[in-house]
């Protein structure tokens, strides 16, 4: 008997893999062929359009002579797309914020570094304050009106404000809804369900049409702040439900043990319950952030020029008519990178935080 005999060649290696995963039965073979045909229909034409036949260099519309995409359109309007109408002399202020944000995020992404907690606290609490002064002015900086804000910058501002402010409100609402005090619980429930039950557009319409009526004569918020308040409450209601899920997942023993140790309600929540339950729901929280980031595009309906809004806007410029495909594909690519990156990060975090109970 020969013990060194190899398995048949079609059972191992590349051939074996192909046979097992693509051609195991006759209908799998047909499915594979159909799949390959679809890929052939979509991928090569797209790559030809976007890269091989595309124009990358030039400055005006006349340089777009090739049959493929003309990325000159994006290149020429890059400043508008990234900064909006922000005054050219003040762009360094936004650049500083971009720089700080990128550095801190990369720092958080690299595994096994010290002081990650401090960087996180900086990003959540100190960075937004710096941004307020940097962007709108004050402390010796020139005032820049919010109607000049736009592009990717505005999208990040809205998403950032929504994320940073909605989390604490969401946590308070979740605690309120789970509270044993009937009035607090009822009020929180009503608040959460109203915001969750309506589409964000109606919230934004409400923010732009009704908030001015709510304020006393003479007090006038600008459009951006009204939109921000709407976005903040909307996303807080969704986060509240996510956090409540985490609170419900806590075993009752945790509550009882902390009460037995003599902790007050707030100490029990802050030291025992919330740290554990927030950890469980981190992936879901990031999921809400992704949804919020995608939803920021809706502000263009009430007349703010966010990233997508500015791309729509430059597409209507008479010098660049007919390049909407390039604009949309570029916007889609940027949004996709942000959202996909966040979802992959949350998956990684989920694995890392899973200490196994």
């Amino acid at each position, binding site marked *: 008997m020969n013990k060194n005999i190899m398995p048949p060649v079609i059972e191992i290696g590349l051939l074996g893999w192909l046979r097992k995963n693509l051609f*195991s039965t006759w209908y799998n073979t047909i499915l594979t062929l159909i799949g390959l045909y679809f890929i052939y229909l979509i991928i090569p034409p797209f790559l030809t359009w976007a890269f091989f036949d595309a124009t990358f260099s030039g400055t005006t519309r006349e340089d777009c002579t090739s049959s493929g995409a003309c990325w000159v359109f994006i290149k020429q309007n890059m400043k508008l797309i990234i900064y909006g109408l922000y005054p050219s002399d003040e762009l360094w202020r936004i650049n500083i914020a971009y720089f700080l944000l990128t550095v801190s995020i990369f720092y958080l992404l690299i595994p096994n570094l010290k002081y990650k907690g401090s960087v996180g606290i900086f990003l959540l609490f100190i960075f937004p304050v710096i941004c307020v002064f940097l962007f709108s002015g004050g402390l010796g900086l020139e005032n820049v009106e919010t109607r000049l804000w736009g592009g990717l910058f505005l999208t990040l501002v809205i998403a950032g404000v929504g994320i940073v402010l909605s989390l604490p409100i969401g946590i308070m609402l979740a605690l309120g809804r789970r509270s044993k005090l009937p009035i607090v619980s009822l009020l929180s429930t009503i608040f959460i369900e109203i915001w969750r039950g309506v589409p964000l557009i109606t919230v934004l319409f409400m923010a732009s049409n009704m908030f001015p*009526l709510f304020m006393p004569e003479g007090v006038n918020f600008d459009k951006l702040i009204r939109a921000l308040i709407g976005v903040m409450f909307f996303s807080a209601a969704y986060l509240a439900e996510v956090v409540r899920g985490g609170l419900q997942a806590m075993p009752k023993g945790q509550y009882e043990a902390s009460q037995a140790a003599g902790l007050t309600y707030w100490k029990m929540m802050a030291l025992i319950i919330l740290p554990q339950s927030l950890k469980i729901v981190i992936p879901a929280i990031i999921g809400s952030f992704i949804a919020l980031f995608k939803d920021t595009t809706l502000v263009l309906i009430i007349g703010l020029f966010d990233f997508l809004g500015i791309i729509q806007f430059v597409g209507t410029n008479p010098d660049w008519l007919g390049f909407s495909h390039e604009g949309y594909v570029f916007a889609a690519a940027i949004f996709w990178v942000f959202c996909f990156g966040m979802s992959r990060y949350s998956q990684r975090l989920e694995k890392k935080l899973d200490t196994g109970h």
Partner: protein
Amino acid sequence: MRPSKFSNFIFNRNVQGTFYQAITLSLVILGVYYIVQNTAENMMARGLASGFHFLGVESQFDIGMTLIEYSPTSTYFDAFIVGLLNTLLVAGIGIFFATIVGFAFGIMRLSSNWLIAKIAETYIEVIRNIPLLLQIFFWYFAVLRALPKPKQSIEFVDSVFLNNRGLFLPDPNFGEGSSVIFYLFWITIIISISIFIWSKRRQNRTGITFPAFYVSAALIVGVFFAALTATGFPVSFDIPELKGFNYKGGMRLIPELVALTFALSMYTAAFIAEVVRAGIMAVSKGQTEAARSVGLKEGLVLRLIIIPQALRVIVPPLTNQYLNLTKNSSLAAAIAYPDLVLVFAGTALMQTGQAIEIIGMVMGVYLFLSLFTSIIMNLFNRIMKVGER
């Protein structure tokens, strides 16, 4: 030292609870009062009367697409109904296609065929991570508005035409006698349901099976075609024809509607696919193995063991996605499809200035839909919970 009566009182949990609640309630009431007060003053200053009297007033604007009779002389309330129906239409069509595409991709994602699973995964990951509004813009501005003129329309089997004016479909025309077919169709369906119930009961009692599915399918199809022939094919199709610069006849779907429903269904399908995948994966492998070892055939394993258990997991998040689709249909405002938000919270609000009443009504509609769905879901969960250990 014994604690004094006063500190006993202060640190009593019930007393503290009542105290906190009183503070919260008074803060909320104060806030609401402040807002109401300001609103009343502001409306007085702008010369606006509150109330719903404006609903009976002539609207004086036209709407591009209406399912019911509507003209500029109709009232604001009619405009509200038109917008509501247009929203429900988009939601209905969108839910139908999103379910089909979503289930297809969800099952593909679990395929043992590596390529098919990867294609489904790519679709889901690409579509889910791009904002819906961007996708709607893409389909509307970059695809449908860029289509050729009616003369160079894209044709399918000489009866469906797609061009920059919209999608033209054959319009069914029900002639005399078609109501007979309609009634017969429903009667056969009722008979089939009774056959199912009877065969199930008999099987429970005696164990003898009856091919209920094939019998009722044959009954429905057979009677349908027999009736068609007997009445002499009363259903005809009005096929769109090119006359001058545009198509006449048939059914025309405006490009806004096509773009919106297409984008909504593709977007929601990606989420439904994930729901379906999670539902199927939630049924443990032991269930399949146990069912096989009892001797059930593959088809029965799926029908009796896997699908009922998977559906229990799938249905609640699925209805949630339907609700999301309905709420997302409000993005119609961005491409000027006349839905509830655009017609009522847009045009009507601009003309009347009745911000509070109008936004209240629009939000009320969506809130009603949400609450209604969640009540149905709670009922569903209660019924489905019964079989559980």
